[in-house]
């Protein structure tokens, strides 16, 4: 612990001693890190809820016999993208059935079960809902990807700048002893370290979130097809 604390202490000392360019670079990196961690925490919380609710909602959907029953529990599982797909499909289905019922009630119509006019309209409604849900799941992930790819470069810029100035310092002092060279380079390297510090979690969690979203997208496609099958079986 002693050596650790000492290393950490010297890091803070280095930051305090560094020049204005290095400080600006470090501030930018800090802002990136704060925002990317904010997104990471939010997405972790949000996607875990989404996954939990999606599982439960799918079970309820498969166990229930009527769409109206499922529609009643939608409020409880608002976070799940399946709810969005279901609501869109249900709304399309309802409006078509309502129209069919009106036509049947009109004089001269043949009595019978109301049927769907167009199954592909329902399919399109499901596709639209899926697009909305995917974009909702992926919202702000690009910022994470940006953080992951540019913070190392920003850090590298700070380091190159710092080493440039420290070489200028060497030139003006006229000495190449390690005591003169090393502090400047150590200060400069802090920027690269900070860049990696911001980038590594962003890369990790970006990939993690993309995998989760891909998983959810697959289950959304599966659900849409299931919904379409049921609609076709019952209303055509």
């Amino acid at each position, binding site marked *: 612990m002693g050596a650790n604390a000492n290393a950490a*202490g010297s890091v803070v000392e280095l930051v305090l001693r560094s020049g204005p360019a290095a400080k600006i670079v470090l501030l930018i990196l800090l802002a990136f890190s704060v925002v990317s961690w904010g997104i990471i925490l939010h997405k972790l919380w949000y996607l875990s809820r989404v996954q939990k609710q999606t599982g439960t909602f799918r079970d309820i959907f498969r166990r229930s016999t009527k769409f109206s029953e499922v529609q009643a529990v939608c409020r409880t599982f608002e976070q799940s993208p399946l709810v969005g797909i279901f609501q869109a499909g249900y709304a399309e289905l309802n*409006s078509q059935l309502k129209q069919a019922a009106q036509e049947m009630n009109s004089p001269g119509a043949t009595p019978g079960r109301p049927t769907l006019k167009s199954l592909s309209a329902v399919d399109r409604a499901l596709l639209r809902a899926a697009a909305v849900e995917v974009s909702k799941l992926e919202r702000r992930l690009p910022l994470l990807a940006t953080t992951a790819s540019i913070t190392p470069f920003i850090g590298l810029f700070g380091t190159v700048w710092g080493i440039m100035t420290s070489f200028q310092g060497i030139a003006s002092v006229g000495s190449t002893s390690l005591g003169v060279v090393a502090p400047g380079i150590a200060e400069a390297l802090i920027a690269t370290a900070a860049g990696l510090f911001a980038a590594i979690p962003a890369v990790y969690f970006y990939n993690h979130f993309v995998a989760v979203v891909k998983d959810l997208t697959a289950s959304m496609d599966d659900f849409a097809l299931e919904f379409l099958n049921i609609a076709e079986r019952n209303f055509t």
Partner: protein
Amino acid sequence: MEAVTGVLLERARHDTGLPRMVTASLVGHVALIAVLAAASAISGRARNPDLRDVMTISLGGAPGPNAGGMTMMGSPAPRRVAAPRDAVTKPSPVVPPPAAATPAMTLPAPARPARTPPKPAKPSAGAGTAAPAVPAAPAAGVPGGEALNPNRGLGFNGLSTGGGMGSGSYLDVKGFCCPDYLVTMIQVIKSNWSARQQVAGVAMVMFRIQRDGRLTDIELERSSGFAALDLTAQRALFVTQKLPPLPAAFPDDHLTVHLNFEYTR
């Protein structure tokens, strides 16, 4: 508006909690920085606050030139060291000639009383200034006459940064004015210490050199793991007791030194 569009718009709106998480992230970052700063403050207080005025010097290993990647010290240093080194190698050839010359000088002296005095005065003055300057450092520094030469050769090699692992003494000085003083210091301490022990190890001892050259505040800083080695290292400093006064070019009233005693088997 179409029913489906209404549903989709409603669904697209729901996205909350991000500002809260960004705030949490900000708090986390501030906390992390505070912890680092606190660790720095604690470790800074625990260790020497004036770490920049401090040198770490290693002592030990085989005498001889350090092979790997030596870096000479700052530009003023070589000039200062070169002068005493020349002076040291010469004393025996240089001193006799004036001694032999003086009888010869004494003879013509009465013949030309007016012009000659300046001439003998110059060589004698030259020898006079060279003589005190030379013995002052090396005579105090190296008691053993034969050990002097290899050690002198080592002198600047020892005062190099980098170099082979643990071979010879190395030195990391931050802006200390007078490397030749350190050469003297290392030689004096080495003469009171033996690197060859039954076990290998490194003991780090801290001490202060006061302006008049006294060694004070001798403390074991890092144990070698063997009490005998630690005691031998400290003993070398206690026996040394006094070094030449600090050079006038050094501004502070004392110099803190961290000395690594590297023992070989």
